[in-house]
């Protein structure tokens, strides 16, 4: 059986090895997690509520000078949150609006910058990480810095037992 001294040496060597290997392992783990999922843009032809809502947002955005497009669609149950990432360019004015179809009561859109800063839907300003902001289905932002932003869409349905379709529309203002 090993003496306490040699056991101590083994533990020290193990710790040193772990110290060397851990960052690489972490990095590999992070790369392995870097997978991309297809974005769906299918709108259920029977869901006229959703179709009309999309059309309304697009027309309004166009009139306001935004190059707007349907970015993503989905079907979620009550309380579900969907995520997407977008690179937003500094100085541009962007909007993000989520609309729901039949059975969707409300939707909440949250935009978070690379440092975890949360976009205030009322002012468009980036607030410190963890700050609670009022729920909103739409917001505008003019990022000071180019970077990757996380967009979160949370669904609240009229009926807890049925899901609802939703769509995320976004655009940038052509004339800044």
């Amino acid at each position, binding site marked *: 059986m090993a003496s306490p001294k040699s056991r101590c040496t083994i533990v020290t060597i193990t710790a040193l090895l772990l110290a060397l290997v851990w960052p690489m392992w972490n990095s590999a783990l992070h790369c392995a997690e870097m997978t991309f999922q297809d*974005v769906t843009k299918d709108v259920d032809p029977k869901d006229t509520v959703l179709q009309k809502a999309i059309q309304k947002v697009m027309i309004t955005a166009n009139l306001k000078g935004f*190059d707007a497009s349907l970015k993503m669609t989905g079907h979620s149950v009550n309380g579900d949150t969907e995520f997407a990432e977008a690179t937003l360019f500094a100085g541009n004015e962007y909007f993000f609006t989520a609309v729901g179809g039949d059975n969707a009561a409300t939707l909440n859109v949250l935009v978070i910058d690379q440092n975890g800063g949360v976009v205030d839907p009322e002012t468009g300003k980036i607030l410190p990480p963890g700050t609670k902001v009022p729920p909103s289905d739409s917001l505008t932002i003019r990022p000071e810095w180019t970077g990757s932003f996380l967009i979160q869409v949370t669904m609240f349905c009229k009926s807890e037992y049925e899901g609802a379709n939703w769509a995320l529309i976004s655009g940038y203002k052509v004339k800044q």
Partner: protein
Amino acid sequence: MHRAMKIPAAFLALVLLLGAADAVQAGVTGPTRPESESVRMLLPSPGELFVSLGRLGDVDWSDAASYNPRYDYKDNAYRALNLGVRSADGFLAIQARDKKNLGKMFQSIVTLAEELMVRDTVLDQGREVEKLAREGKWDKVHLELGKLRTAIMDEMENMGDSNVALLVSAGGWLEGLRATSKVLAANYNPEMSTILYQPQLVNYFAYRMIRLDKGSRNNPVVRNLTASLTEIKELIDVGYKNPVPRENIVKLLEISTKLVKEIEKG
């Protein structure tokens, strides 16, 4: 516990703790996304990049553009990449208020899209572009070109040709990178250089390009573009809010110019 073993154990705990902290910091986004969630990437339009670059002030947009009017290419990979490049150049022509080159780019976009089997009804949406340009309604022209580009990409997705749609995006992104690098190399501005900080987009293209169908993946220019993404990422991944050094921009210009020339050559 034996006293001699307490120190290594504490060290081990510290290492684990630091490792865990590093893992949290390595996350690209905020705290709420589940770790295992794969990313849905919303791709930007080249027009979006150029509007941001416009803050630089006096930019020689025409000098930044490639404006190659060619549209006869042998396969869909070249057609799609060139369609992306032409649409980026269309946005540059709009920034430059250049009706003549916008017309050329528009014709090229429509012909390439037709070759890629995009329906006439989709392409008809863009017929207003030239008329609006003649009337000098440039903001509306920008909106119309944006709508046309989106409609073409959506049509390709609807036809189940996501490979082609990806290559259109990649071509547009690459021409955007080339034009932006050209402008910034000539008028270096540390703050403006941060618009090149797009590592997550490079990650996305790298991930998708190696998963293209075999035919597209084996296209020489697709292979070269995929191989260049690692170097491009190293040059732009300078950290959030940090300027991209001028020497990196010069190198980016060199890489992207070579690739765009290969795409245009066919």
